[in-house]
Every structure is written in C-alpha cells, then in structure tokens.
C-alpha cells in the first residue's frame, strides 16, 4: 500500500511540476498588470523542445551529453524521496542523502556548463558551484534542527511528526529554521534574489548560463529538472509550515485534495510576490544572504536546545 501511495505521489508531482511553474509565471504577470501566458505553457514549451533537433558544440565531450541524464535522475530521485502530495512514511529518503543528491545534481550541471568551452558557461558554473557550496552548511543545520526536534531524519516522517502538535506553540523557534529553509529553497530553485530565471543578460545568469549551450531534448530535461526540484522543495517547505490535512495522513480524500491545491496556489503566489518585490542580489553580495540563512538556521537549532 505504501509503495502504491508513494508511486502515485511521485507521478503526481512529476506531472504537476510544470503546472506549478506556470502558476508562478501567471501570478507574476498578474502582479505586473499583464495577462501572462496560459498556465499550461510550460508543458507546451517542453513538448516543443522534445520535437526539436539538438545542436551540440564540437568541443563538448561525453560529460556534456551525460550531464542532463544525471541532473534529471537526481531531480526525479529527490521527487521520490521527498513526499509532497501524500505523507507516506516508509519509502522516504534520508534528508542528508537528499542534500548530497542535490549537490550531485549541481555538480553534474556545473560540469556540463563548463564543457562547452564558452565563457558564459564557465561563469554560470563557477557561480552555481559557489552557491551549492554555501548552501551546504545552512541545509545541514536546518536538517539537524528538524531531526533534533522531531527525532526523525526522513522527509515524510518529519512532516508527520510536526503534524502531531502545532509547532508555533510547542516549538516556536522553528520559525527561524523555516525561514532559513525558505532561503535555501530559493537558492536551490534558482529564483530571486539568488538568481533570475527570466533574464537575457548573461552576466546576471547563474542557472540559465549553464544551459545556454543545450538545445532540444537535453534542454527539456534540464528545464524540467529545475522545475521539478523547485516545485518539490517549495511544496515540501509548505508541508513543513502547515503540516495538516495532507493526503494519506488520516485526512479524508476531499479535504486532502483541497488542502494540497490551496498550498499549491499559495506557494506559487508567494513566490511570484517575492519576485515582484525584491531585486536579484549582486552575486558578490551573496555571502550576506547565506550568512543570514546560516544564522537563522543556527538560532533555530540553538533555541531548540534551550526550550
């Protein structure tokens, strides 16, 4: 039964990730007084890319060709290990493993970006690897805080344990941990204020710069992996903050579906709101961003020891 639930959860997440990004773009357009593209445009865009031919640089080696497979596989594994739609317990992955897998995916993409011998790719790779490296201590301290509070180290178990008591009364310090995790999710998902996913200026790109040399199906794989990663992490963060009414955790089907749709829409709207309010940070000021995230996580963990 558990296997079935986690399979359904994974398949649903795989199917809904482009819709999530479509909603984010739609909300951002509305906030900018525009109409924006229909929410199913990412699906059409990916389908169009699959139909296109691939043009590959003559200087690229097998690393360039292997990178999209690794990146997409890692994203799919993260979607399997971090349950978002259903709160399944057994087949869920260890959080340290998830953070290491995210690093593997980042490393693979970085090497793909360097391989095409373009200056933009190298710049994006260097920046992305720095961001991945700076995210690591913040994420580990967040995981340590969650594990210390709930006693569990897998993604689904943490959410289920948090649901047992309202965390804002019992563990109010978790607000720091969740704020730090939100900052980490923005960094991993390549959103504002760490990276701009819609820029055309290569000097402002981080994730986009690494995929400049990819085309056709490889580009579809990389774009889909990025959408999937952000959707999974953002919805899991929503599950942490509001761990109630998740399907499979004893909630009836209708209320579970309603709660999931509500979280979906609210998280997409909050992302769009953030992107409309702040500007992307200058890359060489990112140490301030990550220091803030780290200190928030640190306080969250230390306060958990006192209270």
């Amino acid at each position: 039964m558990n296997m079935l639930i986690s399979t359904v959860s994974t398949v649903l997440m795989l199917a809904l990730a482009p819709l999530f990004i479509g909603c984010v773009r739609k909300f951002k357009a509305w906030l900018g007084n525009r109409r924006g593209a229909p929410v199913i445009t990412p699906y059409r865009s990916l389908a169009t890319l699959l139909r296109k031919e691939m043009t590959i640089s003559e200087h690229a080696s097998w690393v360039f060709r292997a990178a999209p497979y690794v990146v997409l596989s890692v994203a799919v594994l993260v979607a399997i290990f971090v349950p978002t739609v259903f709160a399944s317990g057994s087949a869920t992955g260890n959080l340290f493993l998830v953070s290491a897998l995210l690093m593997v995916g980042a490393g693979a993409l970085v090497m793909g970006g360097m391989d095409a011998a373009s200056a933009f790719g190298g710049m994006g790779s260097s920046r992305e690897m720095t961001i991945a490296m700076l995210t690591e201590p913040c994420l580990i301290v967040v995981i340590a805080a969650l594990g210390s509070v709930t006693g569990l180290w897998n993604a689904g178990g943490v959410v289920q344990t948090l649901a047992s008591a309202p965390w804002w009364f019992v563990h109010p310090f978790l607000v720091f941990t969740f704020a730090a995790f939100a900052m980490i999710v923005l960094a991993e998902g390549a959103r504002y204020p760490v990276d701009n996913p819609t820029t055309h200026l290569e000097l402002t790109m981080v994730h986009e710069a690494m995929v400049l040399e990819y085309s056709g199906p490889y580009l579809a794989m990389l774009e889909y992996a990025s959408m999937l990663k952000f959707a999974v992490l953002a919805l899991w963060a929503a599950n942490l903050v509001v761990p109630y009414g998740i399907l499979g955790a004893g909630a009836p089907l209708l209320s579970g579906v309603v709660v999931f749709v509500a979280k979906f829409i609210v998280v997409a709207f909050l992302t769009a709101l953030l992107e409309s309010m702040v500007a992307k940070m200058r890359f060489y000021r990112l140490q301030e961003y990550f220091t803030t995230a780290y200190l928030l996580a640190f306080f969250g963990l230390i306060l958990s020891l006192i209270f």
Partner: protein
Amino acid sequence: MLSQNAIAYLIIIALGLPLVAGIFGLFGKNSKAFNTAVGIMNMLGAALGACGAGAFLFLQDRGLFLSSSAPLLDLARFFPFLPSHALSVDMLSAYFLLIVNVGFFLVSWFSIFYLPRESDRYRFPWLHIATALFVFGMQLTVVSGTPLIFLFAWEIMSFAAYFLVIADRSAESVKAGFSYAIMTQLGAACLIAGFALVSRGNMNALFLELPPVAGAAAVAGLILLIIGFAAKAGIFPFHEWLPAAHPQAPSSSSALMSGVMLKVALYGLLRVFETVAHFTLPLPVIFGFLALTLFTAFYGALMAAVESDLKRALAWSSVENMGIMFSMAGMVALFFALGGNGAAGAVWIALLVFAFCHMLFKSGLFMASGALISETHTRDLDLMGGLAKKWPVFSGMFLALCLCAAALPPAGTFYSEWIFMTTVASSIGAGAIIGLILTIVISVFALAAGLAAFAMVKIFAGAFLAKPRSDHAAHVGGLPLALYASPAVAGVLCVALGIFLPYFLRGVFPSAEGVMFSGSALMVGGTSFSPLTVVLSLMAAVAGVWILRSVFVSRRPRTTDTWDCGAPLTSRMEYTATAFAAPPRFFFHIFTLPLKKIISQPVSADNRWIVQKKLEHESRTIAEAFIYRPVARAIDGIAGRVKRLQSGVVQFYLALIFVALVVTLIVAL
C-alpha cells in the same frame, strides 16, 4: 581458515619482501626490466601482507575497541632478540596494515608502468631503495608494540620519505624537502618527548602496559604526542610542508605519501588515544584539538578550492581530509568523555571507513594525475583542458575518483560522513553547551565538505573539460590502459566499499550487527537506509530517463561550433580553474589573502592617460604570514643575542664554567 602462524608468516614476509626488492633495485640503474621486477616483488609482498591482515580482521571476531581480552598476534616470537609482544598485531594494527598493503599494492602496480615514462627525471635505484625503506618503516610502525620500536620505525619512514621528496633534485624539491625535514623532525622530537613522559621513562614497555595518564607530566606528554602526530598529518598550524612536499615527489611516491603515510600518522594518534589515554582525555585538550582539526578541515578545503596547481590542490585536499579524520577522532574522545559510548562507537566506525576510502581515492587521484601530467607536461590546471574528449575512459575514471573525494553518493566517503553527521546531529539534544559545540562542529564539517566538492569539481573541470588551454594539452597522445588500470581499480574499490559497506562492516565488526547495520542497510541511532538501494535507484532513474529519451526522441544531434556571439572564440576566452575559484577566493579573502597589484605606468610624455598596466596576483597563506614568519624572526632575534656568548674572551668562558660548577654543587648537595 588461516592459522595464527600462517598469518604471522604472511605479515613478516610482507615486511621483508619490499626491502629485498629495494636492494635488488639498487643494481638496476634506470632499466625497465629491473623496475618491472621490483614492482612485481613489491606487489607480491603487498598482496601477501593484505591477505594476512585481512585474514586477521575478517576471520576473527573482535570488539569495537581494544580491550584487555582482545587477542594479539605476537610476531616478536620469531625474532629472539626482541622481547615478547614487541611486534604485535591487533585489530587496529591489522586494519591499518591492510590499508598500507592495499595502497602499496596499487602504487607498485602503477609504478611498473609509470616510472619508465619519467626515466629522465628520476634515478630508479634511489627511488626503489627509498620506497622500500619507506614502506618498511610504515609497516613496522603499524605492528610495533613498544614506543621504542614505534619511534625507530617512524624515523625510518620519515627519512625515507625525505629522499622521495627530493627525488628529482630540482631547487623547488630541495626547498620542499627542507621544509618537510624540519617539520617532521620537530614532530619526531615531540613524539620522543611525549612517549618519554607518558611511559615514565620506560620506552620498552608495551603499549598495553603503559600507565594511565595522570598528573601534569603525563598530560603534557599526551599533548606533545598529539602535536607530533598532528605535525606529520598536516594539521594547522603544522600543515605548510604538506602542499610543498607532496607534489614534488614522483606521483607514485606522492600517492604513497598522501594515501598511506598520513594514515600511519592517524594510526599513531588512535594508538595513543586507545592505549595511553584510554579515551579519557581532559576536556580542554579535546576542545583545543577539535578546534584545530576542524579549522584544518575548512582551511585545507578552501585552499584546495583556490589552488590551480593540480598536485598542490590534491595535497591541500589531503590536509582537509586529515583534518576531518582527526576531528572524527576528537569526537570519539569527546563522546567518551560525555558518556555516549554508542555514539563514540559509531564515529569510530565512520573514522575507520573514511581512512580506508581516503587511501583508495587519494592514491588513485595522485596516480591518475601522475599519468595525466606525464602526457601534458604541466601541473598547472590553467594550461590543461579538452582531455575528456581525447581520453573518455580515463576521464570517466578520474570523475569517479573525484566523486569519491567530494564525498558524494554512491562513494564510500559519503556514507562515512553520513554516519558521522547523523551521530553528531542526533546527540545535539543532549544539553545546551554540548549542543552548541556539536552544532558548530557539524556546521564547519558541512562547510568543509561543500568546499571539498567545489575543489574536486574545479580540478576535474579545469583538467578535462572545454577546449585545451595550451599547446601541450592540445597535442597529447594516447594514454595506455595499463597506466591507469591501477587508479581505476582504486576508484572501483572506493565506490564498491560504499555500496557494500554493511557487508564490509559485518566482516570487520560483526558485533555491531543490529547497531550499525542490519541486512544491507546502514543504521545509526534508529535511522537507516541501504546504500545498495540508493545506487540501484540512481541507476534505475538514469536508465528510465535514457529509455524515455530513446523512445520519444529519435533525431541525431548536429554538431556546430560553440555559440560565440559572433566573434571567434579562442581557448583564452574560456574559464580556467583560477577563474572558476574566484568566488571562494573573494568570499573567504581573510583566509586566502589574495594580493592583487595593478601597476600602471604612463608611456607617453604628452598624454598621461596612455598607460602600460601590469597585473600581479599572488596568494599568501595565513600560517606563513602570521605564524611562521613572526616565529622565525623571534628565533633569529634570540639567536642573535645568544651569539654574544661567543665573545672570544677566554676569561668569560672560564667564568661560565665556574658558575656552572657552583650551580651543580648547590643543586646536588
């Protein structure tokens, strides 16, 4: 299966055979045939030693830690001039003997094919005898049962390594060797003093019979011992010699030094912790030790990330790994001091697994970079590139080794770090102050791990990807499989160790069943997952994606040039390793101390805006700038003042003798 005697014979042969091979190699000049014969003898000796040590480990059940009832294998009974148990093998010795012998096997296999390519730079007899003594010293250190034999073997190892460092007789190597010699003798002095203090002067006493640490003298001795091992392992602030000396040795010897000798330093530390201190070190010592080793881990990783010389970057990475291993040892001591014996056992296992993996991937990386450098004729990452296209298999193997070094799944290093982090994180709730310390420990650990991954990606990207950045790299020849078969095996072993780690642990620590592993899953403190499942799901995901892609996409890709925005691209325009590392160099500039000077000189008398600009960029190291130079200046100053004693006036000398006589009489009577 194997009797105790058989195991003893195997180990003794393994001790002696490399010496025989080295002496044999003395007569060969630079002959390839002699080199091959020596290599085969070395491989045989190492294989026998590995079999013996492995049989001892796997066929007999030992507890997690040394206890007074743990069986010892006495080797000294074959040598009548040695007291009983002066050479003995126990679980710790056997584990590190296995590490040394497997490492030596891989390296001697590699040097059969590697040294003939470098026959114009090195004199083989020199290398063979130095390597033989080096390995003999290492193995003897590991099986020694008394401090005296330990120190004797330690000195043999250190001296032999000096000759390996200066093997190519260039000015840089001699300078590096000098720095290495000073640091290693400083460490040896600390070790001698330390052993003298803790054994109360009786250095012939067995390790097992040393009195427990009590009293200020013994604690001082313990601290001196820790400093001695830290100096050998490259812990801050005794680390400067490591990135200077390891790259200068021939790559096969660098692999031995970095992959194996550093483990022997770790062995020494663990032996001292186990037998001298019985894991009850005073808390201030533990905290100081942890602070230094964690800083070493961070600093080594940072310098590896910003270094653009391939072998130096790997040496800095060794500094970082030794920092990690020593801090794991410190955590074992800390957990024992706090009463968490289960957590201590888990971290001990993580430490031993990390040591084995480190030997495999570090020697693999040094060997592979030796092969690489012999073709590109440069050690500078900024001048390499484009090699993944020319050598797809070699680059795949190097990538696997970099993955192991970066501690990412599915390599064994990741699982060792996972055990460590889960154990530390689970224990955070034990108290406020302890939780604070453990949080800092785990944060620095994670930062060092992130920087290590950065360094490894940078090394691989700079060396293999994009277009070749120099003519040498553009015109490399082929790389024969025989040359890189050995590092390939090292990489495969490291990954296999990760995948089958529960089975390996079951063999070595059968009593930890149900605590650390169960079935094919690793367990720590209630949480578990199976490395086999992880790697299978990774492979399944890749296979699934590949199948889907083959089904939905059928067009062949078209090859074009790189998008160059309209202007032709040269290899000067792509990112180099130095450029790749610019963000960490900037973010951590307090530690990397980059110094950028732009000197601009006007060239025209009429127009002062036409200038000639020169950019000078250098990196200093904080140890050299803030510790070594001030200490050197102070010693120079003191020595200058003491020089005045040599005034040449006879009356002064007579007065000195008279004063010394009077003082001695007063003290003695």
